[in-house]
């Protein structure tokens, strides 16, 4: 009976561990990565211009590794969204970031899928943008936020889908 309980517990723990493991997206140069690093305001790190709280979510954030490597986190786990909303709560803190390290010769970058505080944190899926967007838009579902965002609608109405007013999609 004890053996069964232990086996079940190990299976559950194993399932929980893999539940937060990054998935591959089929992008060239990607590597699944789980790294411990400090969340920093990139502009602050480069120039010494350091506003409070990493710019309160208005600045691009990065991971500063223990070997001093700085990697910008450019993507989260949602459609067409970055990771600032996911990371801002960790400003200047050490986290474990789970996702994809993309060492493209043109630019190294990290795509965040899960994160947690390094000390005693709980895994969180990197989908904070949608939650924040939904809250700011009367509770609307965020799955198609990019179609329903009032700023997108206004811009496309003004400039058209190609950015040039009057330029029509090619005839099928």
């Amino acid at each position: 009976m004890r053996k069964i309980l232990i086996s079940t517990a190990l299976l559950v723990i194993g399932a929980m561990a893999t539940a937060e493991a990054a998935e591959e997206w089929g992008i060239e140069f990607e590597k699944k990565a789980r790294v411990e690093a400090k969340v920093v305001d990139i502009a602050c790190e480069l120039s010494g211009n350091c506003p409070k709280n990493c710019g309160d979510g208005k600045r691009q954030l990065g991971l500063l590794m223990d070997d001093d490597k700085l990697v910008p986190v450019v993507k989260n786990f949602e459609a067409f969204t970055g990771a600032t909303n996911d990371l801002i709560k960790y400003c200047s803190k050490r986290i474990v970031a789970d996702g994809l390290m993309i060492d493209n010769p043109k630019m190294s970058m990290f795509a965040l899928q899960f994160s947690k505080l390094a000390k005693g944190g709980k895994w969180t899926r990197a989908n904070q943008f949608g939650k924040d967007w939904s809250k700011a838009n009367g509770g609307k579902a965020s799955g198609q936020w990019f179609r329903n965002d009032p700023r997108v609608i206004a811009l496309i109405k003004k400039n058209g889908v190609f950015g040039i007013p009057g330029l029509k999609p090619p005839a099928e």
Partner: protein
Amino acid sequence: MDRRRLSLGLLATLSMGFAGLSGTSRAKAAVNKAIKPKRIQVTGEVVDTWCYITEIMFAQGTAHYQCAIWCALGGIPVSVLGKDGTVYMVLRVEDDDTSVANPKLITIQTNEVTVDGDHYVRDGVNYLMVNKIADNKGIINLTQEEYGIQPFGN
């Protein structure tokens, strides 16, 4: 009792002092590590960093305008794609040092611009603090005939 209060007060003051010092130290550390930038002028198209670098779709010109707007508003970094193929991630535009869903960057998305800025290179990434948009030719890269509307066709 008074002595205990005094001790606690002193401890709290010292803690706050250390916390303040810690914050100051972080800023100083950042300043100390700061790289000296190089003043450069770059001409190129304003692009979405993620779509362009990963090549998950065709990500230049009119075909990608709508998607580039989505990504910029979604907080993905915006870059300038130099004529030599170098991708410069923009961290500031003129007097505005924000770079997440920055309205100025969204307004010039997909435009062909010439910018003066401070160039930083660190760990395989080119960063640009734009001091001035010296020229803007608007959207001139007409790719929609060949690529339609990226990525969904509508």
